[in-house]
C-alpha cells in the first residue's frame, strides 16, 4: 500500500496497460513539444519578445515626437496619429490611458513600440482579444499587420491601481 514500506523488489519496469499508457502519453508530449517550435515558424500570430531597454522618460519623449509629426486629428482630447505604412508606431501605457489613438492601414505592416511610463500594464486589444504584457523600462516591439478594418478598443488587463478600469484606448484600421 502507498502508506507502507514497499516490498523489497518494488523497482521494476512497467508492464501491460500501464506501459501502453506511458508510451502513449510520452508520444503525445513529443508531438506537443515539436508542435510548439513548428507553429512558431508556420503560424501567423506569434510573439518574438523583441524588446529594448529604454528609460521611461526617454520613451515618453519619443512618443511625443511621434505624435507631433504624425498627428491627423483628435478624439475626446486624445490625438489620433497615423504612422507611415511600414514604419514605426508608438503606444504609451500610463495610469490610466493608452496614448495616442493609432490609425493604421489594413494590410500594411507596422512596428508598434509598446512601453509604460509608470507601472506594469496589460495591452489587450478587443474584440479580437490579443494580449501582451507591458513593462516600464522595456520597449516591446510588436510587428503587426492588421488583417481587418474597423475600430478596435484597447483595455488594460494588468492591475495598475484604483483607476485600472478606466484605462482604455483605440486603434482604427482603415481599409
Amino acid at each position: 500500500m502507498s502508506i507502507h514500506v514497499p516490498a523489497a523488489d518494488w523497482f521494476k519496469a512497467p508492464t501491460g496497460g500501464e506501459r501502453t499508457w506511458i508510451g502513449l502519453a510520452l508520444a503525445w508530449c513529443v508531438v506537443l513539444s515539436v508542435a510548439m517550435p513548428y507553429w512558431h515558424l508556420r503560424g501567423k500570430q506569434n510573439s518574438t519578445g523583441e524588446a529594448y531597454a529604454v528609460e521611461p522618460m526617454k520613451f515618453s519623449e519619443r512618443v511625443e515626437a511621434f505624435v507631433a509629426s504624425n498627428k491627423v486629428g483628435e478624439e475626446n482630447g486624445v490625438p489620433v496619429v497615423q504612422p507611415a505604412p511600414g514604419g514605426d508606431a508608438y503606444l504609451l501605457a500610463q495610469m490610466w490611458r493608452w496614448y495616442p489613438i493609432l490609425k493604421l492601414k489594413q494590410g500594411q505592416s507596422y512596428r508598434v513600440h509598446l512601453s509604460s511610463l509608470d507601472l506594469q500594464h496589460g495591452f489587450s486589444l478587443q474584440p479580437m482579444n490579443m494580449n501582451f504584457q507591458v513593462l516600464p523600462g522595456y520597449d516591446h516591439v510588436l510587428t503587426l499587420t492588421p488583417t481587418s478594418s474597423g475600430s478596435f478598443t484597447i483595455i488594460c488587463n494588468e492591475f495598475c491601481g484604483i483607476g485600472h478600469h478606466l484605462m482604455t484606448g483605440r486603434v482604427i484600421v482603415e481599409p
Partner: protein
Amino acid sequence: MSTTLPLSGAAEATGFATGNHRPGELRSCDTTGLPVCLNAQWFIRINAVMAVVFLLVGGIASILLALTRAPTIHLLSAEWYYRVLTLHGLNMLIFWILFLEVAILYFTATSLLNSRLASKGVAWASFGQMLVGALMVNAMILTGNSDVLMTSYVPLKGHPLFYLGIILVATGTLTGVGNFFATLYVAKRDRTYNGSVPLVVFGATAAAIIAVVTLLHGAIVMIPTFLWSMGILETIDAAWYRLIWWGLGHQSQQVNVCAMVSVWYLLATITTGAKPINQAVCRAAFVLYVLFINIASAHHLLVDPGVGAGWKIWNTSYAMYLAVLASMIHGFTVPASVEVAMRKKGHTNGLFGWLFAAPWSNPGFSAFFMSLVIFGFLGGITGVTLGTQQINIIAHNTLRIPGHFHTTVVGGTTLAFMGLTYYVVPLLFQKEFYARALCRIQPYVFAGGVTLMAVAMTFAGSYGVPRRHWDVEFAGAQVSAGFDASAHLWLGLMGVGGTIAFVGLLMFILLVVSAVFFGKSNAGRAMTAW
C-alpha cells in the same frame, strides 16, 4: 458505507523496527494501528487549525469577489475590490495551503515512518514565523497599505511590512520543511523502518524538495523588493521581478500538486484499500516533477518583452511537457489502483462497475476522486492549452487564467485537502463529526460550485474579459469600451458558481469547527467509519 479501515495488521505490514519515540510521546492509532508521535500530532493540529482559519478569511473574500464581478450585483467599491482580491489570493493560495502542507509533511514523516518529530523547538519556530508573517500581511492589506494583489508586480509598491510578512511566511515554511528533512534523517538513522520509504512519504519529499527551490526564489525576489519598499534600493527591474517571482509563484503550485497527488494516493489507500500497481512508475513521475517543473514557470512570460522566442519555446515545450507527462502518469496510476482494489473486492461488473460501486458517500473518497477528475480534465487540459505560445496571446490576463487555476488549486488541491480533513479530524484530533449527512454532500456542493465558476470564468475570458478588473463596463473611461452580452451572461454564471462554492466552503468550515471544538471524543476506540 464501508471503508477498509481499520488497516488490520498495519504495524507488521510497514516493516517497522523499533520506533525512536521518547517515553510518553507515542500513541497507537485506535483505528489504523499506525504510530502517532504526540509532538507531531500537536503541530499537525495547530497548523491545520490555522489553515482552516485562513481558509475562512479567503472564503469570505471569495464571496465578496464573486458578487462584485457578477454584473447585476457589483457589490464592492473599486478600492475594496482590489483590496479583497489581494486578501483572497494570499490567504487561499499561500496561507491555507502552506499551513496544511506543513501538517501533511509532519504526518508523513512521523506516522508513516514510525518516527518521532525531529524537533519541537524548530516546529514552534516554523509555526511562529508563519503565523506572525501571515497576520502582518493581512493587517497590511486590510488597513489599505498594500493594494498590490498577490503578485505585487513592481513598481506597484506595498508597505514594507507586507513584504516582510511574506518573507516570514516563506522562512517559516522553510523551517518546517527543514524539520521534515531532519525527521527523515532521524528515522533513517534510528532504523525505525526497513527498506524504502512509503510512496506517500516519497511524494511528500518531492513536494518538500520543490518547496525549498520555490522558497529560495521567494527569498531572491522578496528581500530586494522589501529593501526597495523601504527606499534602500532605488529600482527593481520589472522583467527580472516577473522572472524570479514566477519561480516562486508557479513552482509553489507544483508543491501543491505533489502534496495533492500524495494525498490522492493516501486517500485511495484509506478509502478503498488501493495499492499502486507499480511503485517505480509512481515514484519516477514524482521525480519528473522535481526535475522539470521549475523551468515550466516560463509560460507566465510567454507574452512578455525581454525574453526571446527561443527561450520561451525551449522552456515551455521541452520542460513543461515532461512535467505534464508526470501528471498524465499519476492520472492513470491513481484511478487504476482504485479499480484494481475494487475489482478484487468483487465489483467486476462491466467496464465501470467498480467505479459505480466505489464508496461515494464517504467524503474522503468523493473529495479525492472529484479532485482527481477536476484537476486532471479541467485543470490539466486548460493548463497545457494556455501554456502554448500562440494561445497564450489570446488568453493572457483574461479570466481564462483564473478559470484554469481554480480547477487546479481549488477543485484539485483544496478539494483533496478537504477530503483528507475528513480523516484528520477523527484520527488526529480524535473527534467525531456532527451532521454526517452534511459531511457526505459537502464535497459535491463545493466541487459543483467550483466547476461551474471555473467553466464560466473560462468562457467569459475567451471573450477577452480581463481578470483582476473591477468594471468591465468601463464607465467613465475616456474611450468607451465594453463586452458582448454573452460575456456578461458568463460573468453572472460565475457569480452563481462562486456562491455555490462558498456555501460548500462554509459547510466544510462549520462541520470541521464543530467537530474539532465540540465533537465527541473517540479516543480509545476506532473512528466511526464513513
